[in-house]
């Protein structure tokens, strides 16, 4: 803590050893004498989105008896799409946990009790035993994780802040004491290098190295989690049944999977049709090779190209909200589907037509990492106006995507592969080609619209010099 001021922050490292040690032995922290007025506050399940009716406790960051500081994370709650850290608005002690990890609770229901002083812990616990929920759990979770608490008399919909640090139970131990609760990333040289090369944002990663430092294997684990089929680094709550599926069992959807299911059914109400096109990508590949070292990813290049084509075809960027009208979107926000452990999410590259390719690539990395850590904010996955779905990296040469409700079109991108083609002058040659297939809402977007859009996109991809402007 003495070093926190050296780091020029008022932030006190979250779980210093001294605090953790107290669990058993109680006392000795000088308490402010003027805090005499005693209070036991209830911690409610917060509403993390407008559609959320209940939330699942991913993990308790704090254990019963732990001291909490205002602004510290207390619990990680899973909502429809993201895991959020919920932080405390009060100083005090986590007196009793009412809803254990892995269980769900309705928004607004009490999930824990917060005592203002140590003496009141016992009182709070007796109060808890009178309430229905189950006991136990907590004490065991002394993994020194970050987090904050969210005490509060604040009603459920109160401003809950998703914290910077990642979800709890992950691999490692404590957050690095020098990381200022996640504001500063402490990562080893190789971890940094690897993160840069692999396009992983170090910010969401919980370190497993000495003092909670992020080391190479944490970065690799993070990447594995981003990639489809990637294993491991999920939240504590979900570790139970990660990739190994128990045959013969019925496993209920997670909140995210439920949300996907709802959306898929809803999509059936939209009359869609499909148009395919084949691009020659030699020039794009060459460009990619050239600027890859600057951190540019193929996803960002495709998003950029798509956005530039959409500028010329606003109708393809429109949607039909009420069955009676076109909604022409003022922004071109390209959503890109990302498989994450246990589901699928579509982080959005906002204003992809206006942002330069390098910033766009950086933004993408940040989004992917957040998605992996289930920390995307609603505006980061909700505002898409056009969606890209790319399975090319798995060798898929063509497929067909379902249109996400609320948008006008989605483009399915296949692998870029060397192909023998005949040219107009009667020769045959080898070219790298990529097939795309656009699914669109025919109420607003017609075949000719898509055809024109694809022609424009083909021009951009086959002569990609504008992408780097």
């Amino acid at each position, binding site marked *: 803590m003495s*070093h926190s001021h050296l780091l020029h922050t008022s932030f006190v490292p979250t779980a210093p050893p001294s605090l953790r040690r107290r669990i058993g032995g109680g006392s000795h922290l000088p308490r402010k004498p003027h805090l005499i007025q005693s209070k036991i506050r209830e911690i409610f399940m917060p509403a993390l989105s407008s559609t959320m009716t209940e939330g699942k406790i991913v993990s308790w960051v704090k254990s019963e008896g732990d001291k909490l500081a205002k602004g510290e994370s207390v619990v990680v709650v899973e909502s429809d799409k993201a895991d959020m850290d919920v932080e405390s608005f009060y100083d005090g002690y986590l007196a009793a946990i009412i809803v254990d990890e892995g269980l769900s609770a309705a928004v607004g229901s009490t999930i824990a009790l917060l005592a203002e002083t140590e003496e009141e812990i016992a009182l709070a616990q007796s109060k808890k035993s009178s309430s229905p929920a189950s006991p136990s759990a907590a004490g065991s979770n002394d993994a020194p994780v970050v987090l904050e608490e969210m005490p509060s008399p604040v009603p459920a919909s109160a401003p809950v802040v998703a914290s910077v640090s990642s979800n709890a139970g992950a691999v490692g131990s404590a957050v690095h*004491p020098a990381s200022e609760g996640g504001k500063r990333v402490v990562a*080893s*040289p190789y971890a940094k*290098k690897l993160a840069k090369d692999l396009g992983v944002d170090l910010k969401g990663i919980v370190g497993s190295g000495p003092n909670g*430092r992020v080391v190479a294997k944490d970065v690799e684990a993070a990447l594995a989690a981003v990639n489809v089929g990637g294993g491991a680094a999920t939240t504590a709550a979900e570790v139970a049944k990660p990739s190994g599926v128990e045959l013969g069992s019925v496993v209920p959807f997670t909140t995210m999977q439920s949300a996907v299911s709802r959306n898929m059914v809803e999509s059936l109400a939209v009359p869609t049709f499909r148009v395919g096109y084949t691009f020659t990508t030699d020039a794009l590949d060459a460009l990619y090779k050239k600027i890859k070292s600057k951190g540019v990813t193929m996803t960002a290049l495709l998003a950029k190209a798509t956005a530039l084509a959409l500028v010329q075809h606003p109708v393809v960027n429109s949607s039909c909200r009420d069955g009676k009208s076109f909604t022409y979107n003022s922004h071109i926000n390209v959503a890109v589907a990302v498989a994450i452990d246990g589901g699928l999410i579509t982080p959005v590259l906002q204003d992809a037509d206006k942002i330069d390719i390098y910033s766009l690539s950086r933004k993408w990395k940040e989004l992917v990492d957040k998605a992996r850590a289930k920390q995307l904010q609603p505006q980061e996955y909700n505002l898409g106006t056009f969606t890209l779905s790319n399975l090319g990296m798995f060798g898929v040469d063509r497929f067909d995507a379902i249109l996400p409700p609320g948008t006008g079109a989605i483009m399915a991108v296949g692998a870029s592969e060397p192909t023998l083609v005949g040219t107009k002058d009667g020769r045959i040659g080898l070219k790298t080609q990529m097939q795309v297939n656009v699914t669109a809402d025919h109420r607003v977007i017609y075949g000719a619209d898509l055809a024109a859009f694809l022609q424009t996109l083909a021009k951009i991809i086959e002569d990609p010099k504008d992408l780097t402007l």
Partner: protein
Amino acid sequence: MQSAISLSLSSPSLIARSSAANDTCPSPLRSLRFCGLRREAFGAGASSAATSLRLASFNSRSQHSNLNGVFAALKGNGAPSSSGFDYDLVIIGAGVGGHGAALHAVEKGLKTAIIEGDVVGGTCVNRGCVPSKALLAVSGRMRELQNEQHMKSFGLQVAAAGYDRQKVADHANNLASKIRSNLTNSMKALGVDILTGFGTILGPQKLKFGKGDSGDKIITAKDIIVATGSVPLVPKGIEVDGKTVITSDHALKLESVPQWIAIVGSGYIGLEFSDVYTALGSEVTFIEALDQIMPGFDPEIGKLAQRVLVNPRKIDSYTGVFASKITPAKDGKPVQIELIDAKTKEPKETLEVDAALIATGRAPFTEGLGLENINVQTQRGFVPVDERMRVIDANGKLVPHLYCIGDANGKMMLAHAASAQGISVVEQVTGNDHVLNHLSIPAACFTHPEISMVGLTEPQAREKAEKEGFEVSIAKTSFKANTKALAENEGEGMAKLIYRPDNGEILGVHIFGLHAADLIHEASNAIAMGTRIQDIKFAVHAHPTLSEVLDELFKSAKVKLTAPKTVAKAVPV
């Protein structure tokens, strides 16, 4: 016959040769040259039996000196030639510089003593180039064995390579003791008196040695050489505990291999240690005060070296910053390093690492030498000397009969430079005026691959050219075109020649690549001997060898001379 000769010389030369294992200690050079001379002298006309030859060699040597190892060991090294002094020459400090001077002095017939206050061999042998070469030999192999791609390209399959830290450390330590005893024996064999204790100059031609108590002995000498060397420089604010905040002295003992080590200073010491540590699995952070890492190397070489030695390895760096405060790990807290901007001095960042190695350079070790007794003021600790290593006093006057060589004078802090300076001094005191050309002294950094250089860097050469009004040209060759390098799958590297196109003078040569440290000597010898490119380009190199990199380099230089003046005449053989 030849072999008989070398046998007869075996006692001194074997010693010298085994110490050749140590890179920069030039004693072997001298001894080898000595062997060569002998061979020339006797090999030519000799047709008699081996025994008579051996006799001849003994005789001829004892004629003009007491140099013969066997005889000298029995007799001591004679009486001082000038009366009234205990010794002709006393050298304070038995590092590589002192050792080189002592051997040469004995060869020249001087009664010589050397004062050692610590251990024979000094920094180079005990805490520097020698043990570090042992560690680098290990790191080179580890690096190769760990490089799956590299092994596969040879068709080799290697299971996971591992190492035993203690045994690696032992290897370094054993090498140091071996070289140390070689050095000691070579001096004993020649009859150099080894005096133990700290030497202090009391006045002109007079000094004492001992533990600094009443048991000190006073001796006189016609000439005195100060060769006290240097110690690691630890900037203020840095607390060295020898465990988590260390200098090269500690690092060479390899008592631990930290997961993450910060190396303060990215010169050749830091660079070599980064090679060792990363090969053994550590991750490294460089902290460099200048704007780029690896200052001091030719910029082009530095850039390439960075691409090969830094970027692909587990290394990151902070440049343009000072480590203003370093606190060792304690109470469960890691090592803390506070960085400030090198220019504005504003705090920048605090690093927390497992260990920190201070490789910011070396400070001269000249305290307690008694320099005040002869009115000499050190400059930042260095003893001021002229180009002949003669010590200059506070009034700018030369102090008669007093010389200073090696790190203590700061001219060129390299073991072999110290030795060369020592030999130069001995030449002077025995009546041959001699000025050492420092531009001909090569330097090497034993990373994998190695970096070596001699003479000027390109910016230095261009600056000089500007001032003196001549033209500078650059020639370059790549290791990629070299058969031997390709056979080793080590095509990464380049050699660079900086020269004057008008007269073919070699201004500098820089090599980055496989065995660069061994390759540089063709260039350094050429500079030392004044050989011009138009001459050396006709020298023949064995094929296929790495030396062809230099062959090609010289051949690619374009000297604007009409006709090479020294083409050998065709002689039928």
